[in-house]
């Protein structure tokens, strides 16, 4: 039984380990390790296309995670006092957002936005005061942030709600009885209790956006995120540079995940 478990763990981690190992390979041959070198990291980090894609990915992940955490937490709190049909509708939307495959979300967002833009752009041009200077709506940062923010928001709502379910309601009542304003109660009682959930939600939202390929593939427009860049370079051939980028991407998500887990675990003990 132990040997079996060990084999499964090796299966899960050896492929990742090999990528990490060969990212430090001095040679470019894929089957033999020819000495330690960080040259591929240097190559990746001075490649303007990689750096461009990385900055797009970071901007999109940060913006969508911040917005999703803010609006998701607000919604999770409000949903506590909402019942009946409205509650059912929100639950259904959260469920759909999580369950519908990314590829369907991607194409649906693509054709919906392109259709809306095709309809709005002539309208904007017609009403714009300066001739030929009207802004052209198109796919790019906005659509990436909006599409990633959707899934991320569903994620934040689920996590913050789970955290609230384990919260001691009597503390809130006590605070109100003692004359605290709603804002005071929120800041001093509710927020400290749900904060681990909010932070973990933010980290997961960021990780999701940073790692997502399929939605970005459809809605990125003229922008390129890091996963989209990696996908198209893999199509052109396997290079040690991709190993270095892959190792960095994995490291970023691993740090985020371990932080999220640690926060949730500690929150569970304290709460």
């Amino acid at each position: 039984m132990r040997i079996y478990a060990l084999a499964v763990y090796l299966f899960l981690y050896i492929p990742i380990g090999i990528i990490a190992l060969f990212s430090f390979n001095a040679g470019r041959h894929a089957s033999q390790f020819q000495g330690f070198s960080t040259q591929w990291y240097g190559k990746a980090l001075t490649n303007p296309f990689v750096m461009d894609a990385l900055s797009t990915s970071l901007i999109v992940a940060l913006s969508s995670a911040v917005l999703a955490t803010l609006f998701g937490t607000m919604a999770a709190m409000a949903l506590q006092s909402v019942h009946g049909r409205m509650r059912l509708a929100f639950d259904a939307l959260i469920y759909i957002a999580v369950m519908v495959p990314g590829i369907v979300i991607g194409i649906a967002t693509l054709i919906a936005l392109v259709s809306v833009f095709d309809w709005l752009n002539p309208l904007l041009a017609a009403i714009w005061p300066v001739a030929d200077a009207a802004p052209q709506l198109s796919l790019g940062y906005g659509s990436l942030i909006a599409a990633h923010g959707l899934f991320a928001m569903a994620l934040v709502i689920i996590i913050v709600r789970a955290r609230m379910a384990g919260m001691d309601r009597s503390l809130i009542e006590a605070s109100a009885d003692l004359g605290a304003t709603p804002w005071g109660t929120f800041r001093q009682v509710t927020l400290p209790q749900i904060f681990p959930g909010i932070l973990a939600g933010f980290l997961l939202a960021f990780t999701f956006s940073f790692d997502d390929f399929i939605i970005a593939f459809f809605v990125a427009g003229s922008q390129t995120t890091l996963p989209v860049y990696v996908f198209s370079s893999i199509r052109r051939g396997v290079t040690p540079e991709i190993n270095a980028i892959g190792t960095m991407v994995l490291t970023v998500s691993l740090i985020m995940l371990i932080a999220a887990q640690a926060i949730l675990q500690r929150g569970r003990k304290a709460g």
Partner: protein
Amino acid sequence: MQRQDLRTWLFLAPAGAWFLCMLVLPLIVVFVFSFGERGAAGGYVPAFTVENFLNLGARWAAFKNTLILAPLGTLSCLLIAYPLAYFLALRTSSRWRTVLLILVIVPFWTSILIRSYAWIYLLGGQGIPSLLNALGLGNPRLINTPFAVLVGIVYGYLPLMVFPIYVALERLDKRLLEASSDLGSPPWRSFLQVTLPLSMPGVATGCMLVFILLMGEFLIPAMLGGGKVFFIGNALVDLFLQSRNWAFGSAVAVALVLVMLVTVAAYLRFTRRWAGGREDVSLM
């Protein structure tokens, strides 16, 4: 009361608007477009026809591959995940359990793109085949085969299968197993008559989650199947980004979602047969 209501609405408004604009509206557009026609230069022309749905057979190969490899992948995940979940739930000390469990879940949250890429590396010509060749075991072609896609599927979705089964086994009342062995059942019999039936809700949840996600898979077949083993997801990418046939592509997407809904309905029927069949499974 009035003020409280207003605040609730204000707090819900941004999330609600976001769901409406980025989820409800796009899904409605796909549904409407699926009854439309392809424009001369691609894109969409409004129409009302069911021709797209009658034409679904043109992409039968993609549906066939998905409907063969998705259940096969789900089954492979189940067979590999069950013993591991069993080990984690019933054969580890609580000190190690959390760490081991986190180690299973963490890969699921890391980039599936990079993890599939790792297998291109391992299964490609300079990876395992060259190793086998050096050992004199021939030089089999592994990459761009259904086998490679299956390996990628198991690698990608194993964590998702382990977790619900673990939760079901962990909640299992251990006294039932003691009673069974006190009454003279050999371990294999206790397993078949107590453990296995009681873990079925977890098995059903894991299978449904993996199957549903596999139905919409694009990346694994694209990377490890090399255009030879393609899923509905790959057909969708081709229809939307290459041939720009939005109407037909929308019909394929609607068909995909319908197949998934049927799966979920079957799952709900299936789990309702178990006492307390509702399982709340979170992945974090």
